[in-house]
């Protein structure tokens, strides 16, 4: 059965290592923070200038000067640092952030990603997404495997304008976890109860299936 948003986020959180600096995009990526194992610690980077993003504030802690990159009120965890946008993107661009997790419209087998612009629709802007995909060491894309019409989002070549090139290494969809290398999607894990055939059917790009593909474990 296809994973829920929460399950995708749970599987994302399993990727983090103890001591990782992580930037989470809006949506499912943000949920991943809720599922980090108690055995490890990660520090969340928010690209508006906060390393060590904490929980949401209590009502009496709400402070207009303390927000995250999604413009939500937030708190700083103990040991956090706060800095300018230039410093924040120096960290990101310079490869100091270990994991970036973000959504996408399309990903292709070259590791290209399209996530910000649909021609003919109003363009709101790329925000920090282009910097994040150009800079982070490991980039995990979370998205549904296919759109609501059943069209695959894992393509031979992205059709939409790109956010970045040759940068995505891992994709976690509602159906599978895949790694991108050697110009192909390598199937690594299946969502529980989802068959390799279903994944193959919904993957337009080149899919490599090596041996038995285990189910995800939560």
């Amino acid at each position: 059965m296809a994973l829920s948003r929460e399950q995708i986020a749970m599987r994302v959180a399993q990727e983090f290592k103890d001591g990782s600096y992580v930037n989470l995009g809006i949506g499912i990526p943000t949920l991943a923070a809720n599922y980090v194992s108690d055995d490890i610690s990660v520090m969340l980077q928010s690209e508006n200038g906060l390393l060590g993003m904490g929980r949401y504030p209590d009502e009496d802690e709400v402070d207009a000067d303390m927000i995250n990159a999604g413009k939500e009120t937030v708190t700083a965890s103990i040991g956090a640092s706060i800095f300018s946008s230039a410093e924040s993107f120096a960290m990101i661009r310079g490869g100091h952030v270990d994991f970036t997790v973000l959504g996408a419209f399309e990903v292709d087998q070259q590791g290209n990603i399209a996530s910000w612009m649909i021609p003919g629709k109003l363009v709101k802007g790329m925000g920090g997404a282009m910097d994040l995909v150009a800079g982070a060491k490991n980039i995990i894309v979370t998205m549904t495997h296919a759109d609501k019409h059943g069209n695959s989002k894992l393509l031979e070549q992205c059709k939409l304008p790109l956010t970045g090139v040759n940068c995505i290494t891992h994709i976690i969809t509602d159906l599978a976890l895949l790694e991108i290398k050697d110009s192909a999607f390598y199937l690594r894990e299946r969502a529980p109860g989802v068959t390799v055939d279903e994944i193959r059917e919904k993957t337009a790009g080149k899919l490599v299936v090596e041996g038995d593909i285990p189910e995800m474990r939560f």
Partner: protein
Amino acid sequence: MAGFNKVVSSYEQAMAGLENDMTVIAGGFGLCGIPEGLIGQIKKMGVSGLTVVSNNCGVDGFGLGILLEDKQIKKMVASYVGENALFEKQLLNGELEVELTPQGTLAEKMRAGGAGIPAFFTATGYGTPVGEGKEVREFNGRPYIMEESITGDFAIVKAWKADRYGNCIYRHTAQNFNPMAATAGKITVVEVEEIVEPGEIPPSQIHTPGIYVDRVIKGTFEKRIERKVTRSA
């Protein structure tokens, strides 16, 4: 140190010299850390044809968004403009031009502008619409694009505290683009919550040294919150 007293007492003085068709660099991220009173003064002055460089363009009726109401902005350089219906309308009407710039590139363009660096290379945007028409060069086998720096006729900045020499500190994440904006204006105006005595801010904790600042004004701030989220929610 009379020559270093940068405090002005009116918004008219703070923005004196701003003219039609000038470029204004504004600090702030969303509605956080924005120079509310200076933006209000620009609206009041009625100057038009402005190029505004800022991460966002406020919201309908608040922040830089109020400069759209009388069509004072000709061109917006920003990374994200999705919070503003009037912006969308003017953009679709062709009344407004927008230059979408990746957030980190925008921050670095401002910093470079203030630091006398006319251009730099970044991997951000290579192979995307942002990279189109820009010079590409490889370093260590990876392609980068050349981005040019930004300076403004005015920079409008929101700080927490400043002394009369213009030394500023920012509060929490209201820092954001403000320090870079402060360096990149021919005339830099800082609106603050509090004016303190020189020496009150320890020298090593000053975020923006006064050398970048031309005018300081004490403002009052509404500090509207864009997305209030609490733990209970």
